[in-house]
């Protein structure tokens, strides 16, 4: 069975194996023992609450309890941009209008910004190809929302997720070729690697500072502003179901969209509920409604946060979990858990 749980000190090798599967395109998860070890240490300190909330990096792994193999990973960073500037382009609107000529021109404009400084970030989502079946992807991605719903005080007002931007079949980024290359004079992947290494001062040195009219970019660059990489489209839909929106912020290199939400407006904060694990008797089984939708359930412990997907249902604050499920959550009858329907209810 699969459980998503807070990462442990002992997970470094498993994490490295996962990172080795990632390939290019995810700058925060590279198979580098030193980087991963540092990140693991930060994650453990985060769950132990020994570092301040804005420095935390909550790293979750999906474990296959049948073979103790790590099947996936995902993370929430407490705050971005507090040690190195966090850059985005923000898309704004400028209207150029002349009554005399009866011309009214609405122009989209890119502003280099650090507006998202201090936001919490959903990142580093990766599911091993062997496990890309059923609800596993949803379980892994949505586990983070249940965590946020359980510990909302740990997160700032805003939560964001950077989506990988559109790439052509040959791996090139039309947005980078149309804009960044003129200023950086180097390859897209090289630039991407430099930022992954935290070498960001070159952005301040080389990026054009002045707002840019999008209409000046080549058409193929204009077309991909805010568009995701085709492999990222499902991840984007999942996050949008949870209440994140594209609000006009994009990556400065590939123009991939940033999804964002106020923490208080996430579906998980609105719709998740607490429940007590019911004693395992027939009465509860009998009263349980016929299950229609799977439910996410987590325990309520920060340090040992664990989450599973179940067919049980929260009925008036009580949920009937099997003993195997209770074991996965590290809690037993009478314990309080948090539940959230896996899928979004269709609106009226």
């Amino acid at each position, binding site marked *: 069975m699969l459980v998503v749980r807070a990462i442990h000190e002992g997970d470094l090798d498993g994490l490295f194996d996962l990172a080795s599967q990632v390939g290019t395109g995810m700058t925060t998860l590279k198979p580098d023992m030193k980087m991963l070890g540092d990140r693991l240490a930060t994650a453990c300190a985060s769950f132990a609450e020994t570092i301040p909330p804005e420095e935390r990096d909550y790293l979750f792994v999906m474990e296959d309890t049948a073979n103790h193999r790590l099947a996936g990973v995902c993370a929430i960073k407490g705050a971005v941009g507090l040690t190195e500037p966090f850059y985005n382009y923000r898309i704004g609107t400028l209207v150029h209008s002349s009554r005399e000529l009866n011309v009214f021109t609405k122009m989209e404009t890119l502003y280099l910004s650090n507006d998202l400084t201090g936001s919490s970030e959903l990142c580093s989502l990766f599911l091993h190809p062997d496990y890309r079946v059923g609800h596993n992807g949803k379980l892994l991605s949505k586990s983070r929302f249940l965590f946020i719903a359980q510990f909302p005080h740990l997160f700032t007002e805003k939560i964001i997720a950077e989506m990988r931007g559109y790439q052509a079949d040959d791996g090139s980024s039309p947005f980078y070729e149309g804009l960044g290359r003129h200023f950086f004079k180097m390859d897209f992947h090289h630039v991407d690697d430099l930022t992954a290494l935290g070498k960001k001062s070159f952005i301040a040195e080389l990026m*054009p500072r002045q707002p*840019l*009219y999008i209409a000046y970019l080549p058409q193929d660059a204009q077309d991909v502003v805010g568009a995701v990489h085709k492999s990222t489209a499902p991840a984007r839909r999942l996050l949008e179901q949870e209440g994140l929106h594209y609000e006009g912020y994009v990556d400065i290199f590939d123009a991939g969209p940033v999804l964002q939400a106020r923490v208080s407006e996430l579906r998980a904060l609105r719709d998740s509920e607490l429940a007590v694990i019911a004693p395992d008797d027939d009465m509860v089984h009998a009263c349980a409604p016929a299950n229609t939708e799977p439910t996410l359930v987590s325990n309520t412990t920060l340090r040992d946060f664990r989450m599973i997907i179940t067919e049980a249902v929260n009925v008036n604050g009580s949920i009937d979990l099997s003993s195997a499920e209770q074991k996965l959550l590290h809690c037993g009858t009478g314990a309080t858990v948090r539940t959230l329907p896996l899928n979004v209810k269709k609106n009226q």
Partner: protein
Amino acid sequence: MYVVRPVETADIPALESLAAVTIPGLHTLPRSRDKIVMAVERSLASMAAQVDIPSEESYLFVLESVEERRICGTAAIFASAGSNGTYFSFRNDVIQQVSRDLNICHSVHALTLCSELTAYSHLSSFYVAPEVQKGPEAALLSRSRLLYAAQHPRRFGDRFFVPLAGVTDDDGQSPFWNAVGRKFFKMDFLDAERVIGGARNRTLIVELMPHYPVYVPLLPGDAQAAMGQIHPSGELAFNLLTAEGFEADEYIDIFDGGPILQAHKHALRTFTSSQKLRVRTGVARTREGPLFNYAVSNDDSAAFRAVAIPCPDLEGCDAVALSPEIQDILRVAEGDSVTCVRI
């Protein structure tokens, strides 16, 4: 023999025929009779005005064949480009890009909408009929405005500029306009020039044109190539003006990307090298040395006249020999003072 003189009311019909032969999209001369009349009247009023600070005055000069009494050229100068608004141009900025970490060092060009030319005096409407383009008359015409300005410093700014028409194709399309202005104006170059009447000091420019720099590398190749390029019709003017001391490169036109030449008056030969000399009656003689073309003007602010004459080097002289005919054309007599500058 040709003379440059201020325009007169009687010149209006001749100006109308000249306007008919100039090229669409090039704002050398007003096109309609009404506008020509206005330009002439404004010039007459400007010449007659007492001026303390350069403002809305505009001075129009014509090149006339003395024998035929035929107008074969025009040249004008506006006292202050921004007298009724702000004169907009693109400044050519160079942004240094240096990253020591990455060992990158290059520069990026950007065009910034600016109003720096507003207080300059503005040379315009330079047109020379084909039959006199080869001779010294073209230089005489171009320079006479500056001779007039040098004699009347209070009527003009300390700096001068001249926009030259940029390149367009046979359909009147401007590659620079198509890449820049069209995105904001949403119309063809010739339509835009028509609605704005060739002006660069109208409110609608600040309403419509880009507020933020245009990064040149983002422009299509043909638009980049058109920046600072002159329309073939402007080559003569360009050569005359650069010889005079005007410099290109710093500003370009916001519509067609054509060059705007500009200079402080201290950098212009008419201001730095012209001499005031006494008239003596005589003719230039080759035994005084090789002959050069000189522009010579009277110092009569009410009836400015200038001619081009061949003449030995006047360096160090205190008088210039003028034939009685020339004296007649210039309306000067022996002992009067004239201003001379080598063409």
